[in-house]
Each structure stands twice: as C-alpha cells, then as structure tokens.
C-alpha cells in the first residue's frame, strides 16, 4: 500500500490531527477535526468500506462538528 495516493492521504491525516490537537484557537481545532474526518472518509473508500465512509462523514464530520461548534459558542473560544 505504498502508492503515492495512499502516502498523501496518510500524511494529510497526520498533519490535520496534529493541527487539531495542538492549535490554541478551539474553533480552528474543531474545523481541522472535521477535515480529519473527511480525509478519513476518503481512506475508508480506499480500504473498500463504503458503509464506514458514509457513517464517518455524516456522523463525525457533520453532526459531531456541529455539536462541538455549539459547545464552543457557549463556552470559551481560545484555550488559555
């Protein structure tokens, strides 16, 4: 599984996870979590799992992101 597309996807996964976990602005972190989930959706399709791609993109990428944004709106936006 060492083809260029897989390498690019895996590198994108690691980069978005790092930004989501280490950035101080919580809204940026949550948006990066959503990008992480969308990249994961593409990786599921590469692994021949279309059910998981649908479930991940809708449940984690849309619904959980909206819950996070509502919570951040009601609490603090920066992590300090």
């Amino acid at each position: 599984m060492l083809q260029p597309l897989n390498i690019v996807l895996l590198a994108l996964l690691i980069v978005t996870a790092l930004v989501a976990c280490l950035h101080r602005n919580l809204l940026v972190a949550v948006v990066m979590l959503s990008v992480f989930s969308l990249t994961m959706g593409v990786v599921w399709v590469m692994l021949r799992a279309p059910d998981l791609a649908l479930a991940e993109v809708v449940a984690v990428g849309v619904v959980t992101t909206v819950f996070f944004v509502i919570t951040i709106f009601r609490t603090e936006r920066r992590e300090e």
Partner: protein
Amino acid sequence: MTWNMLADNINYAVAMVLFCIGFYTVIVRSNLIKKIIGLMVMQVAVFFFLVSVGYLSGGSAPIVMPGEVPSAMVNPLPQAMILTAIVIAVSTTALFLSLVLKFYSHYGTVDMDKAKEDQR
C-alpha cells in the same frame, strides 16, 4: 524488523502514531474541549487500525454484485464492528459535550487547571 515490513504495514504504523497524538493531547492539555478532540482522534485511529487489518489486496467492497467472486471481497467483519463503534463514539462525544456545558455553568471556565485554582 526491516523497513520493508514497515512499508507493507504503513497503515498500521500511521494508526499507532495517530493514537499517540490523541493520547498526548488527552493527558497534557488541560482544556476539556481539547481532551474531547484528542479522544476522538484516538478512537478514529483505532477504527483505522482494525479495518486495515481486514484489507485484502485487490479486493472489492463486500457487496454482492451479479457475476462476482465472493472470495475476492475485503473482510466485512471488522467493518460491521467499526460501524457500531462509530455510533458509540458519537454518543459518548455528545454526552461529554453536555457535561462540559454543565462544568462551564458551574465553574465559569472550561480549563481544568483554572477551575482547580479558583476552587482553592
């Protein structure tokens, strides 16, 4: 262990690295929302690892199309387990977020260290 073995199993290695990134976030950051984000990254890393174990080179998606050989399909059993696990991840994240809202209304901050200081 040679680099060839690692190159074959690079999906597993990336899953472990993601797990460690999430783990670091959970134990080091004191902001509760960061902890939830780290938890979510850990969960997705474990799902990634388990489904990649079941991959078959040159396999196709586990949907029976007319005229297809069933034994050339990817392993469907981890996919079924991880489908349930995604639901559980979403529900625990939602519950954790509601607890964070309650924490904020009680302590006025989402940061655990600040809440502990203010209490003293």
